């Protein structure tokens, strides 16, 4: 019992640390980009620092679970921890040497993502290996919960740690810290499993190698998509000049990947379920929820820095109400789902988030001074947004689990995370491209006639802040639309009765 708990706890801890790093950079971006020579006028170049991690995460996630079936969970998990630590070192050393510029930092983030993404199916599979029946569901839920919690806590964790370690490397410290944390988790796993390899026998029927064709299809497809959505000239166009061919290539490659995956999943998940409206709907809803969720996680702290003129730590803390709202909503979602059904609960959650986004689309530059009673109006909107997203987590996960057999719950749960992360990756890329284009459109080419350079820069800061505010208002409206669409998809795909949540 203790052995199993220790193993799942250590694997979950490693997964939590890796998930923290998905959005840890959000509040650190200005300092990080400055140290690799990216300036405010080329801020679009910072996008791959976030999307690089997500791309690695998405590529590794579906690949390594099956690989570990034969190679063993612990060795593959340790390799992922090693990759995560290596990526952290590469990221932490960015800007220290001439050759270690932005590509070095993006490469570090990608390697981090590979390691972190690989840990998701491995930790889930480990939990599935070690537990049975109801205990398995609890273990899988705990691991998935750690992954979700790490993702949403990342921005505030990064800002707090960087502020606390200002004299010890600042943002670099956040990444250096990953090395001892990964080492501790790895050492713990090695010690815990020493002499007990027999208790971790590989699952039967697994493939013996990484599915390289799938890896190549997914990696190349995502690469083409991210390239197509990279804003190479945001002053003049929203999308990359290569968007049409890159988008087409991405569609073909990702389509081929999906087709291949569906064929391979069929033995594990029945064909009729894979092709069912519920499965397609839950997957689509997760993609949409991921795209909307990333708006809050990334754009709110940046809005805090650039528009509300907050320090890094305070911009991270701006997310506090949202971060409190998510677990509150998640617990409420579990309870409500059991009472009124997954469809109503999930749809109500995304509608609540949509309404919060609509309110956020009216924010002004002095929003943080506006109070609704004793509470800041912005905090109310963010809290409701978080509760809405929390409400939707459990019903959507339950919606997928309800379609699968018990032994496939780990796979099903990682499909939920994969769909949401894919939505985050595509959503962030597309909305950043749109946002930067709109920013340039709104700002135009202002002529500054203030007599002093500092006054001109100050004046420019105000104009830039106003343009960013308008840009983010529009992005919040798009996020509201994504949530509304997710609500429609949920209403269309999930069964109305509460039975959709049961197995």
């Amino acid at each position, binding site marked *: 019992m203790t052995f199993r708990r220790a193993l799942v706890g250590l694997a979950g801890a490693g997964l939590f640390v890796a998930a923290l790093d998905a959005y840890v950079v959000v509040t650190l971006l200005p300092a990080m980009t400055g140290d690799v020579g990216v300036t405010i006028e080329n801020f679009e170049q910072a996008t791959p620092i976030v999307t690089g991690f997500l791309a690695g995460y998405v590529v590794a996630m579906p690949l390594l679970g099956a690989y570990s079936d034969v190679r063993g969970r612990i060795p593959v998990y340790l390799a992922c921890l090693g990759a995560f630590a290596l990526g952290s070192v590469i990221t932490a050393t960015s800007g220290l040497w001439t050759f270690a510029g932005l590509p070095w930092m993006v490469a570090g983030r990608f390697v981090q993502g590979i390691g972190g993404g690989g840990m998701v199916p491995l930790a889930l599979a480990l939990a599935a290996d070690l537990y049975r029946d109801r205990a398995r569901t609890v273990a899988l839920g705990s691991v998935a919960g750690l992954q979700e919690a790490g993702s949403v806590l990342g921005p505030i964790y990064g800002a707090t740690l960087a502020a606390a370690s200002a004299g010890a490397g600042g943002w670099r410290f956040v990444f250096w810290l990953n090395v001892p944390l990964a080492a501790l988790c790895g050492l713990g796993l090695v010690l815990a499993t020493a002499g007990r390899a027999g208790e971790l026998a590989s699952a039967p029927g697994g493939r013996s190698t990484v599915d390289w064709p799938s890896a190549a299809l997914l990696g190349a497809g995502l690469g083409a998509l991210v390239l197509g959505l990279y804003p190479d000239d945001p002053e003049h166009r929203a999308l990359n000049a290569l968007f049409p061919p890159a988008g087409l290539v991405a569609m073909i490659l990702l389509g081929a990947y999906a087709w291949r995956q569906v064929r391979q999943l069929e033995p594990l998940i029945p064909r009729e379920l894979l092709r069912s409206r519920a499965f397609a709907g839950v997957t689509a809803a997760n993609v949409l929820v991921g795209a909307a969720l990333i708006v809050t996680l990334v754009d709110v702290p940046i809005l805090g820095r650039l528009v509300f003129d907050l320090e890094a730590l305070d911009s991270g803390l701006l997310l506090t109400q949202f971060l409190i709202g998510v677990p509150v909503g998640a617990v409420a979602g579990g309870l409500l789902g059991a009472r009124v059904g997954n469809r109503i609960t999930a749809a109500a959650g995304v509608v609540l988030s949509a309404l919060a986004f609509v309110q956020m689309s009216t924010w002004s530059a002095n929003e943080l001074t506006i109070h609704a009673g004793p509470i800041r109006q912005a905090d109310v909107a963010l809290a409701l947004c978080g509760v809405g997203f929390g409400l939707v987590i459990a019903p959507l996960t339950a919606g997928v689990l309800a379609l699968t057999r018990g032994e496939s719950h780990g796979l099903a749960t990682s499909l939920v995370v994969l769909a949401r992360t894919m939505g985050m990756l595509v959503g962030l890329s597309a909305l950043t491209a749109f946002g930067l284009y709109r920013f340039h459109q709104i700002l135009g080419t202002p002529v500054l006639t203030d007599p002093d350079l500092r006054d001109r*820069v100050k004046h420019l800061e105000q104009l830039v802040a106003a343009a960013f505010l308008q840009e983010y208002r529009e992005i919040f409206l798009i996020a509201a639309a994504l949530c509304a669409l997710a609500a429609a998809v949920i209403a269309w795909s999930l069964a109305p009765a509460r039975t959709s949540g049961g197995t």
Partner: protein
Amino acid sequence: MRGNLAVVPALALMAIVACSGSQPAGDANKILRESANAMAQLQTVSATLKLTKGTISIQGFTLVSAKTAVRMPNDSDTTYTVKQQDVSFKLQILIVGGHVYEHIPFTPMREITGPEAEAFPNMAKLFDPTTGFPAVIPAGTAKKYVASEQLDGVTVDHVSTLYTPEQVRGLLAALNSSGPVAADLWVRSSDHLIPKAVLAGAFGDAGAQAAIEVDISSFNAAVSIASPSPSQ
């Protein structure tokens, strides 16, 4: 017998060390004089300046780095990367035909005049034969030949010296040191030009210690420094 044999490798080692290019062998005075003459002949040059220690402010902003292209005697195109809090941005100062233009991000280039224009150093003056590097290079004290080294595949003589605060301030007003400034210069053996220099001294903000690394390149190569068009 054993003792005698032990002497052989020691002697061989001494011979290798004596023949090695890394041993002090050059005349620092001569190298710096030749270097000054070579640098005085430059018509165009590019340089990047990077702050490697401490903080230096320019016009109230924290300097991160600067990149300049120079056409003698008076034209220069310099882009300063500066920080305000932790947000970096580029500030371009173009000096051409006696006019000074400023480019702040997202805005069109505009001409500045008077004290505001004078507040920015003209990097072309750094290479002026009578007041810039060529005049100051041989005027240091405590000159010392450090070693013959390889820099980007080119053989260079590494020389160290000390300059007075006045000498350094004369080069670049922003380098306002309260004490002597230590300089490490790498002089190309072939043409005596200086591809790299490191200056360290109390020229940081509030007299704190600071260090800058200057990489000089594109000696007498074509540069494009033109007055901005109206649309810019």
